[in-house]
């Protein structure tokens, strides 16, 4: 977390899937994975389809990486610098994204605990948080939360938010499903 004026912004970790095309040579896979660790990415899984070949005769490899959005950009750049063919990058495993605004005594009621409780529902991650407390943290403040979730997870996360909000007497301003057009 870093502070910017009266705002606190946290950059949370996202999960990304990267599809790489490797030349069928010894050591190629290891060479590919190095830039990920070097740039602060956390390797979640590797799917190495050795029996399959791409139309160009390369071996497709699917890598799941956890990183902040900024670090992920560095990872992709480093992979490309290293001559690795990155076929598809940046497509998140998360298929749902939902933004809510919370208002009330957010700081006095322990905002980190509120965020943790949302994460603990296991269905969604808090991707980023912006806090606005123009009258100081002892007064009523507002926070905008962006949550990312897998299919169906957003509703569960909203449920968790509603529950915490009721308990801590916070107001939840939810998005309007279906009303976006």
């Amino acid at each position, binding site marked *: 977390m870093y502070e910017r004026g009266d705002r606190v912004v946290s950059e949370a970790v996202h999960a990304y899937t990267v599809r790489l095309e490797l030349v069928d040579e010894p050591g190629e896979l290891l060479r590919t994975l190095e830039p990920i660790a070097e740039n602060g990415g956390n390797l979640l899984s590797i799917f190495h389809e050795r029996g399959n070949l791409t139309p160009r005769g390369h071996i497709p490899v699917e890598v799941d990486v956890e990183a902040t959005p900024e670090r992920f950009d560095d990872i992709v750049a480093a992979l490309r610098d290293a001559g690795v063919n990155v076929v598809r990058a940046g497509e998140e495993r998360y298929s749902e994204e939902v*933004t*809510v*605004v919370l*208002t009330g005594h957010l700081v006095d009621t322990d905002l980190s605990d509120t965020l943790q409780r949302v994460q603990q529902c296991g269905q969604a991650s808090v991707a980023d948080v*912006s806090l*606005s*407390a*123009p009258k100081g943290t002892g007064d*009523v*403040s*507002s*926070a*905008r939360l962006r949550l990312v979730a897998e299919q169906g997870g957003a509703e569960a996360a909203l449920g968790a938010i509603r529950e915490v909000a009721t308990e801590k007497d916070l*107001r939840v*301003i*939810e*998005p*309007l499903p*279906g*009303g*976006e*057009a």
Partner: protein
Amino acid sequence: MKLAIVGAGVVGASTLELAGKYGHEVVAIADSGSAAVDPDGLDPAPVLARKNDEGTVGEAAPDAALDADYDVLVEATPTTLGDAEPGFSHVRHALERDRHVVLANKGPVAERYGDLRALERDSAGEVLFEATVGGAIPALSTIRDVGADHVTAVRGVLNGTANFVLSRMAAEGLDYEHVLAEAQDLGVAEADPSFDVQGTDAALKCVILANVLYDDEYTLADADVSGIEDLPGSALELAAEDGRTVRLIGEVADGEVRVGPRLVPEHGTLAVTGTRNIVQLDTEHAGRLNVSGRGAGGPETASAVLADVGRLSRR
């Protein structure tokens, strides 16, 4: 059609004033303490002048309007919750005399829909209530035309006062108290704005929509309601940073009725500004329909009342 109007507030008075322009005549009007009755049709100007000067509409007792010889009773007394009285008794009286009823009062439709429909079944009269949802906006008649079975969800901005407060807060960066005081000065908000800012008024309209959509007996108690009272400006500011804004949205979908502040795209269809209302229908075969316009006001609401009278006259 011959009309008797009960309730001489802004809607009742405007209906009296405009009825002639729509080809109808008003034979009686009552406020809480008096009535004016003329079987040959009332001249609106002296009645309205008297209401303005003396606070009464005529010499007769209020019940005289209910007993007058009319085709349609226009019920425009203030909305009351619970037993929806005295509006409900006025409706009963008219239906028992086999007369039609047009409601501008939300109480009987929102709180006693089952009782209302039962009375209507035993009567030769019919009950219409277009004016109860969204003022001038033809929300209920659009649902009737599309067919309630073909409407899968309804959502919208149904309270002009709350919408005025939210849109001013967002546009000017002012806080809730400041904007509310301004709205009261402008006559947009009442001295006691709780009915509007706590979401009750929008919820009653959603309950009415649910009753029409599902042909069921929803009441205010079935709605999940939260308002916009004391909403901090910082919430609107954070929403705006993300290209969104906050509106008090009523929703009727999947058998649920909800009213509360929601995030909507800042320049989206539902982010109407000022006192404007909007009703959005999701339909089975016709996609999405949006109807917006003035959700309150004397002549606007009277036009919805007179549209109902027109429908009855064509039957």
